[in-house]
């Protein structure tokens, strides 16, 4: 018996289920439960109520007047930074945690890089009464002490990952290893549209609320669709969330802004960027065929970005597919462009963006012509968490 027809788990030639046999049955059970629940009125009602009353949806679509004036075009910001927790991550974790509960799981595990998904998981674990353990690379724990404390305050346990490069990719490895032995009681709450089926599909659908809202809001405000939608891409969950609302609107250019880091070269073990859609090659990482950063032998490279949330050597398989078929335009903003976006948006609009989202803003500042007359930038998170990073970068020392 095949678990799933391989064609159902793919986006073109990307995606699939490249996982140990031990994970095939848990993935099947998850796919079936999710598929059943998403059509269930009670589940939808519960999720919708939590998204409104706990998370704070809908988020506004804000016309950034000063930024628009500066770029000589209308720039709207989709304000996911205003969502509870300060980033779009909660949309996904609320949905998955409800699925986990319906499946009778009592424990959540999650991976986190910058800590945003870990914090969102810890929030939902506290809210829904599920034990939550978050795998986090030792290097990231050191970089993101504040978020580690937030997770602990919310009652989650943060498990330091000492294997490999001790960053996000290793935290995902460790979460997958845990799940292979704990799936009977535990749901693996993956934070992005990467990984084996059904994660890329499920996370995109749970994040699609961003795009659904944004499309209605822009039609209300402008009476027409935007010429472009820009979003930063690490794994790609905020990008797929907003893009999914506009996929059928062929005239709207969907721009995926990846981390250019400190350059486009790659060393033996570390790439200077996180730009898989732009510079990656076909490969298998964390259960999916996608575009990855790797050496000539297939060893996974460490990625680099000032924004921890974009510091990932893979990308969601659906994005790899959408780029390949020409529906999504890959773009790059490096650390410098992101810092420029971070500062300019703060000064112009009184909004401090997350360093991740600042990549999309930085790209807009750098290449406004690419945006057309009306654009939406997905402001996926707020920048409070990044103040230390930016201060250190400016040589002011951390807090």
């Amino acid at each position, binding site marked *: *018996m*095949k*678990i*799933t027809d*391989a064609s159902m*788990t793919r986006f073109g030639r990307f995606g*699939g*289920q*490249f*996982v*140990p*046999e*031990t994970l*095939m*049955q*848990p993935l099947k059970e998850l796919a079936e439960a999710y598929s059943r629940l998403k059509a269930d009125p009670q589940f939808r009602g519960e999720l919708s109520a939590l998204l409104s009353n706990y998370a704070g949806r809908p988020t506004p679509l804000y016309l950034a007047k000063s930024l628009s004036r500066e770029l000589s075009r209308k720039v709207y910001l989709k304000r996911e930074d205003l969502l509870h927790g300060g980033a779009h991550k909660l949309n996904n974790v609320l949905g998955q945690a409800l699925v986990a509960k319906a499946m009778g799981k009592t424990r959540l595990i999650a991976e986190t890089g910058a800590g945003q998904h870990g914090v969102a998981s810890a929030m939902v674990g506290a809210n829904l009464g599920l034990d939550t353990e978050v795998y986090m690379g030792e290097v990231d724990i050191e970089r993101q002490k504040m978020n580690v404390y937030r997770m602990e305050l919310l009652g989650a346990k943060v498990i330091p990952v000492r*294997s*490999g490069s001790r960053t996000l*990719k*290793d935290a995902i*490895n460790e979460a*997958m*290893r845990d799940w*292979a*032995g*704990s*799936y009977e009681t535990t749901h693996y709450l993956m934070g992005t549209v990467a990984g084996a089926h059904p994660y890329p599909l499920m996370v995109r659908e749970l994040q699609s609320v961003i795009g659904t809202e944004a499309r209605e809001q822009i039609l209300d405000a402008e009476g027409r669709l935007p010429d472009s939608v820009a979003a930063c891409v690490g794994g790609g969950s905020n990008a797929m969330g907003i893009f999914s609302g506009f996929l059928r609107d062929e005239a709207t250019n969907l721009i995926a802004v990846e981390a250019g880091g400190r350059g486009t070269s790659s060393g033996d073990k570390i790439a200077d960027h996180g730009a898989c859609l732009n510079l990656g090659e*076909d*490969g*298998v*990482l*964390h*259960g999916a065929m996608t575009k*990855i950063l*790797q050496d*000539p*032998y*297939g*060893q*996974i490279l460490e990625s680099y970005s000032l924004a921890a949330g974009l510091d990932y050597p893979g990308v969601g398989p659906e994005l790899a597919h959408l780029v390949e078929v020409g529906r999504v335009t890959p773009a790059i903003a490096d650390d410098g462009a992101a810092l420029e976006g971070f500062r300019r948006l703060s000064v112009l609009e009184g909004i401090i963006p997350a360093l991740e989202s600042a990549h999309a803003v930085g790209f807009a500042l750098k290449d406004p012509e690419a945006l057309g007359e009306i654009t939406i930038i997905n402001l996926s998170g707020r920048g409070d968490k990044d103040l230390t990073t930016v201060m250190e970068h400016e040589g002011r020392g951390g807090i």
Partner: protein
Amino acid sequence: MRLAEAFSRRPLLIAYICAGDPSPGATVEIAQLLARSGADVVELGLPHSDPIADGPVIQAAAMRAIEAGMNTDVYFDVASKIRAEVPLVFMGYYNMILRRGLEKFAGDCADSGITGLIVPDLPPEEAGPLRTACEKAEVDLISLVAPNTPTERIPYIAEGSGGFLYLVARAGVTGARADLQESTKALIERVKTPLPKAVGFGISTPEQAAEVIRAGADGAIVGSVCVDLISKGDLAGLEDLIRRMKAAIREAKSAEKVEKMESARI
């Protein structure tokens, strides 16, 4: 030697080592030592940066091996120098194979004396292209069955498997465990296939190896314990362990025969 021929002398002891740990040269000698001490098949792991099916012991060995210069080219060079009397089996992750090219990888296996491949992150749903390449190169692609594999799925997995079927003894990752679970014995019974059945994941003592043979397995696979001894430089301990394991599974098998004969007499 093809795996089918090796399995004609069951029960088999299959020993895993991580190629390149502590060095490529040492791996050749260690593989020969395993064969000399009683391993019937040597499983040669190609280290990967992200080994999601492996526990801490093999993860650490992979990191050391990569540091020591192991890569796919060196791997095949090491494999071709082993020239042991027993079959060599590749174990490694799919991205390393994909990167080299499926046909080239399978061909390099055949050319360097490797007769089978175990790819823990390649379920049969995704294995079609590599299986085709393996058939062409006349090497076996060995499939894995897990304790949570539904019984009705087992024939689908077995159908695509060459050489033998790898029964994963327990959920989770590789690494020594004190106890052998009831679910392992249940799995051995649930798997009905003409292919030989070898059990791995968590076997670290002669008693455990004997236990899986008594439960009906055709082979016992030991990995992390070998890697651990190698990391401590204890090759004498490794040789001793392999000898004791081989003796234990032989004894378990002959005891089984005696039991069968006795029950036949009654």
